[in-house]
């Protein structure tokens, strides 16, 4: 259903807009997407809606969009939500762009297409099925597009597009338009007030282009999407220029010329005025300011410097000018430096060809190719200075022959990039593409030469793909046995791509997808195969069944197993041996490492990809040609050390980490511990007595606290508990100012009060106490808080606070834990007044539910702690991103990553490609940047006359003893000192007791020591051998397989 609120906005806008004649003209041809008689839908969107909505910002569904919000932030989302976008040409590319924008949540998308669906469209437009052939393309897509996001209005336009329509949009995208029309429309957009962002993009076979013109003066508010850099100040000199030194925990990332503002500086308070100051001489731990600080107050302590991000003004050229003088192209592949210029000419030649002949060059036609080359040559001559020395005819032949086809992987890549450009145009977030981008993937073509007869259409939905790759590769795709690991954002996109490409779409093919996760609301903003009503269902099953509707011949099996060592009975040897290729669609390194290791073992190609916000990367792992995934690594994520989190937080991450661990300790772990005690008190206490250490003492102390002082029977008890708990966390002496205010008038402090609410309610949940209605009324709640008798604030005894003046007295505490434990147990036994069967209810942290108070409590606690330490506070949303470890994710980069991988899949399944044909990519759509490179070959290790890589395995036949195995290695000039199986040591020359094993069979030792289970069908076991050569150099030898039967 469409929200009513928006309809009202449109009507207001209609009045304000003023050019109402255009509207009447258009209402006739705009067809509403929702057929349920929502008449407001017929009102066309207006360019002025943006401003009309500015006064009344639309609500963002934060549960749905949390992962995207983590990339864009609220402001960008609001601007997106107010934008009307046109997409003209709804073949594969148009469909991909529409999908990405509808998922992102723009105000409206208008689909324009005048043509009807034909079989060729089915190779790339996933909204269409064979039943749609003959219908208008835009109309055929509306309903399925609407399902992706009900908050977006979807309009269609099926008659000829004229420039009068343009003023209704903030951004327009044309995917199939003649150059002449494009220039006309672009001029209109360029000169419109305010300018309309114009994007033109085409994909023709394995070639594609994008052109962006966001007007004569476009302001980018955030050029890279990175958080402003910050620095914690250690000292500032009273010099000219002032030298600012920072604590040496983290290297500074300021650059000369950056602007910074200061806050919370003590002493030299002149700097706290909020005025941006320029950085110079930026060094790893210090920088200078363009500021004379000689007369400032002397620096005392504290202070944070925060970078001020500078907006950037871009002056776009209109298409007509840019065609003649294209400027710098965005280069994606350094092995193809001359391609952008060539394609710049080629696409113009293709436009001319279509204009002259009214059709595309025929598939495989030498005559048409020659015609196109001639056109390209003459256009190149007219380019003046920027012209090419030579036209690469081979590439132009490929270009001409495949130009009619729209391929799904290309659509996915370009849909992602163009989708992101539209977001940039609407919001000013991230740096736009300036201005041309050309791309090709000729390496995806099979290595053998294709004859015209290979390319003939078979009157199937794959005809477009056949016209580029030939029928042989099409058959190979259909018969492929593929394993997709993961059915999240990447997995959904992959399934769509593979279904359209026809992969595993014959009886002999088979696609297995596995994922052990279920669908959650936050998935829906990019995992586009899922709908509201699928929430709670298994991801892989739903994704597989939706993929089957895209292409009913898809031969797919969905499993709910996590790929891990525990599921090797499901994914057993015969499963792996039967695969042609494995595609990773995972979200964590461990699973990637595991699949990589399995692929290396079974010698299967692994296509790996991943995204993080606007970033994406792909890595091809091809047996014997490339290194494996595990061979290179990113540095592990930074984790704050415990001591910093406990006692010395200096940024909000530390506070949030602390708050989350307090949450878990207080509301989950302790209640669980209490339940352990309650379920069997005798056993529990006796085990504590046996342990008799400080850890046991600590646990017991807390259990006693939970059941004695902390025990709540009514909601008022919970409030009391919460109120007193605040004193424990934020004792006097830590921060006088703050403490005094909270002490005197607690109810005037919203954060403090809110924390009581959160904690009381959650505590009530712990004790299964029903929450009274008044808990949500701040006034009444504050009264209840006031009723709590707060004891005098004598420094508390026994509270461990490092800087507490009284800390020394603690040294007198006995270190005899045993005695304390006995006392505590006695105390526990007194707590027998509990009702029988009483159990506490542990609460597990759930970040994605905004009504459960979990994030409220954590962000409240963290912010109060931040305040105590003079750390800038954050809002609940930001707190959620950090404490919930939410990984930023958007649909555009995901779609692009999968498209790039599918271009590689053509190579893998065709076979015979060299490593030079494969491409790894790293892209950042925010900059934008796309870097493609050849994969790195595996490292070759040489020893004597042997050489091997990670892909090799050594086989030794016979049921050997360890001694025989050592001798076998010795014969190769290798002295083994350690042999292991799994994580167990079978033999190590340093352990005397291992000598006894030397005459046992390797397989028996493995069964005995490593508890190895050898299935009856398996004839070998694998051992890892660490050894040295005769000069005592360590030699990294391959896995050794002992074939014992």
């Amino acid at each position: 259903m469409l929200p009513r609120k928006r309809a009202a906005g449109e009507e207001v806008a209609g009045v304000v807009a003023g050019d109402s004649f255009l509207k009447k003209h258009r209402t006739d041809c705009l067809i509403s997407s929702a057929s349920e008689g929502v008449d407001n839908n017929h009102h066309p969107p207006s360019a002025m809606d943006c401003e009309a909505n500015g006064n009344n910002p639309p609500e963002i569904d934060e549960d749905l969009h949390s992962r995207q919000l983590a990339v864009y932030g609220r402001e960008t989302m609001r601007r997106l939500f107010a934008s009307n976008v046109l997409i003209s040409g709804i073949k594969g590319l148009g469909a991909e762009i529409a999908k990405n924008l509808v998922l992102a949540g723009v105000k409206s998308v208008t689909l324009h297409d005048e043509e009807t669906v034909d079989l060729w469209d089915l190779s790339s437009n996933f909204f269409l099925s064979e039943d749609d052939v003959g219908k208008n393309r835009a109309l055929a897509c509306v309903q399925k597009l609407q399902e992706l996001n009900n908050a977006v209005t979807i309009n269609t336009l099926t008659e000829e597009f004229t420039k009068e329509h343009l003023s209704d949009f903030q951004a327009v995208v044309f995917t199939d338009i003649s150059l002449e029309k494009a220039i006309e429309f672009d001029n209109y957009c360029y000169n419109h007030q305010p300018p309309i962002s114009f994007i033109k993009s085409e994909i023709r076979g394995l070639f594609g282009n994008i052109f962006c013109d966001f007007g004569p003066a476009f302001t980018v508010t955030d050029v890279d999407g990175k958080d402003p850099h910050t620095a914690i100040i250690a000292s500032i000199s009273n010099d000219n220029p002032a030298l600012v030194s920072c604590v040496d925990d983290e290297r500074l990332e300021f650059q000369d010329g950056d602007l910074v503002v200061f806050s919370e500086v003590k002493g030299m308070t002149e700097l706290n005025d909020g005025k941006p100051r320029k950085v110079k001489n930026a060094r790893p731990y210090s920088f200078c300011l363009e500021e004379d600080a000689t007369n400032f107050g002397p620096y005392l302590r504290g202070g944070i410097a925060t970078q001020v991000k500078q907006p950037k003004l871009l002056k776009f050229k209109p298409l007509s000018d840019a065609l003649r003088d294209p400027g710098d192209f965005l280069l994606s592949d350094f092995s193809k430096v001359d391609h952008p210029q060539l394609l710049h000419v080629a696409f113009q030649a293709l436009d001319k060809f279509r204009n002259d002949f009214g059709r595309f060059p025929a598939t495989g036609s030498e005559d048409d190719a020659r015609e196109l080359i001639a056109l390209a040559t003459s256009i190149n001559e007219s380019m003046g200075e920027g012209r090419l020395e030579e036209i690469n005819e081979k590439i132009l032949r490929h270009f001409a022959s495949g130009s009619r086809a729209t391929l799904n992987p290309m659509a996915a890549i370009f849909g992602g990039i163009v989708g992101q450009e539209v977001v940039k145009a609407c919001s000013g977030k991230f740096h736009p593409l300036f201005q041309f981008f050309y791309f090709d993937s000729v390496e995806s073509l099979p290595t053998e030469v294709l004859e015209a007869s290979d390319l003939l259409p078979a009157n199937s939905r794959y005809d477009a793909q056949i016209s580029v790759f030939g029928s042989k590769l099409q058959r190979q795709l259909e018969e492929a046995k593929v394993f997709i690991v993961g059915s999240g954002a990447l997995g959904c996109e992959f399934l769509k791509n593979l279904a359209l490409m026809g992969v595993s779409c014959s009886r002999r093919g088979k696609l297995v997808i596995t994922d052990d996760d279920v669908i959650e609301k936050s998935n829906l903003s990019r995992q586009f195969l899922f709908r509201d009503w699928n929430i709670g269902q298994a991801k892989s099953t739903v994704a597989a069944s939706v993929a089957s509707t895209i292409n009913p011949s898809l031969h797919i099996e969905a499993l709910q197993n996590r790929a891990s060592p525990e599921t090797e009975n499901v994914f057993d040897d015969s499963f792996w041996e039967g695969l042609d290729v494995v595609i990773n669609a995972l979200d964590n390194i461990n699973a990637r490492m595991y699949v990589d290791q399995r692929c290396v073992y079974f010698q299967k190609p692994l296509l790996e990809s991943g995204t993080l916000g606007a970033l994406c990367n792909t890595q091809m792992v091809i047996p014997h040609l490339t290194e494996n995934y595990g061979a290179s690594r990113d540095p592990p994520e930074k984790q704050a050390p415990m001591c910093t989190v406990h006692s010395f937080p200096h940024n909000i991450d530390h506070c949030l980490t602390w708050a989350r661990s307090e949450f878990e300790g207080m509301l989950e772990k302790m209640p669980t511990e209490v339940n352990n005690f309650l379920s069997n008190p005798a056993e529990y206490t006796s085990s504590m007595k046996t342990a008799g250490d400080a850890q046991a003492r600590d646990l017991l102390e807390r259990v006693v606290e939970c059941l004695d002082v902390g025990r709540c029977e009514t909601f008022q008890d919970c409030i009391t508990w919460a109120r007193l708990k605040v004193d424990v966390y934020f004792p006097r002496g830590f921060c006088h100012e703050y403490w005094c205010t909270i002490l005197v008038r607690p109810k005037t402090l919203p954060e403090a009060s809110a924390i009581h609410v959160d904690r009381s309610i959650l505590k009530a949940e712990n004790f299964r106490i029903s929450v009274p209605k008044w808990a949500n009324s701040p006034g009444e709640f504050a009264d209840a808080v006031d009723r709590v008798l707060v004891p005098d604030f004598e420094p508390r005894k026994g509270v461990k606070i490092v800087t507490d003046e009284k800390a020394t007295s603690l040294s007198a505490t006995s270190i005899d834990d045993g005695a304390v434990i006995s006392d505590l147990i006695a105390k526990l036994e007194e707590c027998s007044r509990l009702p029988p069967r009483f159990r506490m209810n542990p609460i597990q942290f759930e970040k994605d539910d905004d009504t459960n108070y979990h994030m409220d409590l954590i962000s409240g606690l963290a912010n109060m702690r931040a305040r105590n330490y003079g750390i800038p506070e954050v809002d609940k949303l930001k707190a959620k991103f950090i404490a919930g470890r939410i990984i930023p994710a958007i649909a555009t980069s995901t779609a692009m990553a999968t498209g790039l991988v599918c271009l590689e899949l053509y190579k893998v399944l065709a076979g015979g490609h060299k490593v030079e044909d494969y491409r790894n990519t790293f892209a950042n759509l925010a900059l934008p940047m796309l870097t493609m490179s050849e994969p790195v070959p595996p490292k070759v290790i040489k020893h004597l006359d042997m050489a091997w890589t990670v892909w090799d395995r050594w086989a030794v036949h016979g049921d050997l003893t360890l001694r025989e195995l050592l001798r076998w290695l010795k014969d190769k000039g290798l002295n083994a000192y350690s042999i292991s199986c799994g994580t167990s040591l079978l033999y190590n020359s340093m352990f005397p007791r291992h000598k006894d094993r030397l005459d046992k069979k390797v397989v028996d030792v493995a069964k005995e020591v490593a508890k190895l289970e050898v299935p009856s069908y398996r004839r070998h076991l694998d051992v890892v051998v660490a050894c040295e050569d005769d000069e005592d150099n360590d030699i990294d030898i391959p896995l050794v397989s002992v074939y014992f039967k």
Partner: protein
Amino acid sequence: MSSPSKRREMDLMKLMMSDYKVEMINDGMQEFYVDFHGPNEIIFLPFVICGCVRSVSGGVWRIRVELPDAYPYKSPSIGFVNKIYHPNVDEMSGSVCLDVINQTWSPMFDLLNVFEVFLPQLLLYPNPSDPLNGEAAALMMRDRNCYEQKVKEYCQRYAKAEDVGGPAEEKSSDDEELTEDESDLSDEAVAGNPDP
């Protein structure tokens, strides 16, 4: 560098070659115990200049070592099994707060570095301004004598050879060599690392 799977074996080998007593649990390589002889000057002094380095017999601690799956890319987890009174070691769990073992770990480091350099360093130069045992840190800063007393008390009570499972069984010649090695190494490390 050799493949990650072999790093565990090489690291273990190096430890044993350097005469550390390594006790494995059922021959598993992910988790094991290593006996660690503290440096001789065991009073944990923050500032060597302002106090005489008193010699107390070095304690013996059993150190629990866990190598995560991603070792050596991820740092090993190191914990004291028998008690130690030290500002940077958690009294309850025995876990250690040391930058080289936590934040600044690099796959170039190995277990021998941990036992020859990092742990001796930690014992010789505790850092009370970044504590895990706040009580010990506070005491160290406020009442040096009382702190030293307590360190010794803990040492005598919990860090004898019996406490790590039986009397030490090294040959005496090895012992001397080892001690020499250690002091050399820790000196070097101090020179190269002015922190904290």
